[in-house]
């Protein structure tokens, strides 16, 4: 009998993308949004997150390990597809291609972003308003962050749509259509939150 590890991995991949990685994304975007209220309020919010109890345990089990699995298995999924949107020009097929494309963009962005902030912090840098202000004062980095953040949010919102299908929550065409609208709404709302935060660092 063939194994069913693949079934487990695919479902785990789908689940981890939403819980905890997706939830972490929302929380992260909300904390960033404090930047729109000024440097002090951002620093306070960031400091609060940093001083949560069991910080390393939370970081490892809520962020790094799930993210690592989602990323590595995601690369495998992305490269086993043979994209054919030019021949089959349908909305969902384009979403399929974009989901894989934004997955890769998001991965590049997140790796760089973690390197520049969290790893730098481990080597003694302080993650605060000034740090982000410095990074984003470079126009190239500003665009890199805008593209990275929007791509991450797209990947999350569209991933939420597939999550609902993959777990059998939305079955009928109508429920899938409604969840398309809902996830487009989530994409727009979170993009506004994310982009506003980015521009709050640009003086």
């Amino acid at each position, binding site marked *: 009998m063939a194994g069913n590890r*693949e079934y487990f991995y695919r479902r785990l991949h789908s689940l981890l993308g939403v819980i905890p990685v997706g939830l972490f994304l929302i929380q992260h975007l909300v904390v960033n949004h404090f930047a729109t209220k000024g440097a002090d309020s951002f620093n306070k919010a960031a400091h609060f997150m940093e001083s949560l109890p069991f910080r390393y345990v939370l970081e490892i089990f809520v962020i790094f390990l799930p993210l690592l699995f989602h990323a590595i298995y995601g690369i495998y999924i992305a490269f086993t597809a043979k994209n054919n949107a030019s021949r089959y020009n349908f909305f969902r097929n384009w979403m399929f291609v974009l989901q894989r494309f934004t997955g890769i963009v998001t991965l590049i962005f997140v790796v760089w972003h973690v390197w520049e902030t969290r790893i730098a912090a481990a080597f003694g840098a302080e993650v605060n308003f000034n740090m982000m202000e410095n990074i984003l004062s470079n126009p190239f980095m500003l665009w890199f962050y805008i593209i990275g953040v929007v791509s991450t949010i797209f990947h999350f919102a569209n991933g939420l749509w597939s999550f609902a299908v993959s777990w059998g929550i939305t079955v009928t065409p109508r429920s899938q259509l409604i969840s398309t609208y809902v996830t487009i709404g989530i994409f727009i709302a979170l993009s506004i939150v994310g982009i506003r935060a980015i521009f709050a660092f640009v003086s």
Partner: protein
Amino acid sequence: MAENSTVHFIISRQDSPDSEPYQEEFHVPYRPNMNVISALMEIRRNPVNAEGKETSPITWDMNCLEEVCGACSMIINGKPRQSCSAIVDQLEQPIRLEPMRTFPVVRDLQVDRSRMFDSLKKVKAWIPIDGTYDLGPGPRMPEVKRQWAYELSKCMTCGVCLEACPNVNSKSNFIGPAPLSQVRLFNAHPTGEMNKAERLNAIMEDGGLTNCGNSQNCVQSCPKGIPLTTSIAALNRDTTLQSFKNFFGSDQV
């Protein structure tokens, strides 16, 4: 009309399963109401290509000639469909024919769809009624449900949905939409339901249901209008429950 007196075909050919594909062009005399198969038959009668050279007749597969067997599927002007129901008058010229390369090409336009029949065996896409004693008549099926199931039963294993699926390719072992939808059909049958768990477990194996990436090309391409993505989502729900039962055990069989 003068320009309609011949029909221009560009056909992708291949002499053996492993040889390189090449293209050959043909001008076939026009007849009213002709379809792609009748044009291929005309080439078979008179195998002369556009350059006026004698060539070998084209190999293709066919059977029912009324779009119910699925054997004659090929890619016609970029779309996988049945060549028996592809009416020349409705196609843009030149008409380009290619084999469905998702499947192993036997020769020219003929492909080997065995993998689909193997998949149907794998998921036990039938109702087991043989016993060592008379099993008697099965339970009745409500008429509305019968009508609903009839739509799913229209699948002719043509392979168009596998051809359209980006996740069915040489890098993956995804079973594809058609056999999955058949699991839903046979699990919905009052007698077939008795083997529901067995079928669900079969599609939870490697290469099974979870390989679906929701591009939904299948449902857009199926010539029989089978609600493939609804079937897949419904099976996602069923396998979710089944996997919990498998893991935790269940209070009922």
